[in-house]
């Protein structure tokens, strides 16, 4: 079971980070480079409009049969799908934060002579993070929970192992309750901690 927890965690964390990197790109792209808007919108619509499980099945069984590497690796596909979905979600979160922070910060930085890219990275991103913590907290919790879909394509995560235990011990009660407990344990503390960190930072910066 420990490996199961580790697998679940690694998938969630990896897809979270992947989503963050891509999400930042998407958000900033959409706000500051008008040309990229249609592409970003299509991406978001696709990965937010189709159920995660369907995407996993589609990529693993479907795309995997044409491009076996890397898509036939269940762990990779699960992380990829969740990462893209997360990117679409996080893009939305970051865009909201950017809008909340307002134009002035970028304008001020540009007027001092910094390039668009430098300003985005050094001025906006730190602020965006502080503003996004509630959204990111719930996105992380969502990833932990959605990682459970991965067992359908064979990833040995908590869900998968729970099912194996049930089949082995013929005890339908304990494994599932234990699994539920485990998941709650994984989602709850981090989300709350992120939220608290965010509020503290906000207070400190006088926001």
């Amino acid at each position, binding site marked *: 079971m420990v490996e199961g927890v580790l697998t679940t965690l690694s998938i969630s964390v990896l897809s979270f980070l992947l989503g963050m990197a891509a999400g930042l790109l998407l958000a900033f792209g959409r706000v500051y480079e008008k040309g990229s808007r249609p592409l970003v919108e299509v991406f978001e*619509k*696709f990965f*937010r*409009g*189709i*159920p*995660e*499980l*369907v*995407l996993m*099945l*589609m990529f693993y*069984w*479907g*795309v995997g*049969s*044409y491009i076996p590497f890397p898509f036939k690796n269940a762990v990779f596909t699960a992380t990829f799908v969740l990462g893209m979905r997360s990117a679409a979600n996080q893009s939305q979160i970051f865009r909201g934060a950017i*809008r*909340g922070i307002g134009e002035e910060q970028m304008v001020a930085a540009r007027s001092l002579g910094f390039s668009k890219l430098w300003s985005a990275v050094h001025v906006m991103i730190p602020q965006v993070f502080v503003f996004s913590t509630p959204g990111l907290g719930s996105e992380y*919790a969502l990833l932990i*929970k*959605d*990682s*459970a*879909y991965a*067992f*359908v394509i064979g990833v040995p995560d908590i*869900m998968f192992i*729970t099912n194996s235990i*049930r089949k082995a011990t013929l005890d*339908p*009660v304990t494994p*599932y*309750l234990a*699994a*539920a407990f485990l*998941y*709650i344990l994984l*989602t*709850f503390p981090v989300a709350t901690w992120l939220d608290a960190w965010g509020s503290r930072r906000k207070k400190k910066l006088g926001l």
Partner: protein
Amino acid sequence: MDYIIEYLPLIFDGFILTVGVSLFGIFAGLALGIILALGDSYGGRIISTLIRVYVEFFRGSPIIIQLFVFLYVIPTLLNFRIDPLIVGFSIFALNSAAYQKGYIKGAMDAVFEDQMTAGLSIGMSKPQIIFYVILPQALRIVIPAWSNEYCSLTKSTPALLVIGVRDLTAAATTIIGQTYRVLETYVFIAMIYLAWITVITKIMDIVYEKKRIPGIEISA
């Protein structure tokens, strides 16, 4: 793609089931969510704690686990069997209620203080104020969150195939089992989900516009 045509009835059945569960979930979740929000605000310490446990369970665990718990654990403990379809409908409703309680309570708290005082000043009783003043405003505020919630629900419905309910995704796996056309089938099914969600989102936008009262908006 023509091979799909003979499977259209199957796909249609799956689609109806998916839509049925999600619609039931969102509306039953709304009713239950309002009750939970009211219970949490006015029910006293014990009820609030119970509600909190309920919400933590349904929001902290994957829906697949919840389906299994309901399918296996509860019947075993109480010694009777439940049809997977009923499990599906119930869990989606209960799950959605946990999320909706959060939005609704948040909106209620936002308008609460001054509107309650104003209501008292004209002689209304607390229940009257909640029903005629606070809820009308809170429910309008949550419309965007509500439409989001429906999309969330719809995207969770594929979990149903894991407990043996024949939803849209289950239809896809059946078709693939018979025709071996993996990618095309999944893409087709994916497009159906996408279309449905897009349509619903558009409809919700229209509803929001119609029900909007200038001055009652979500704070950014």
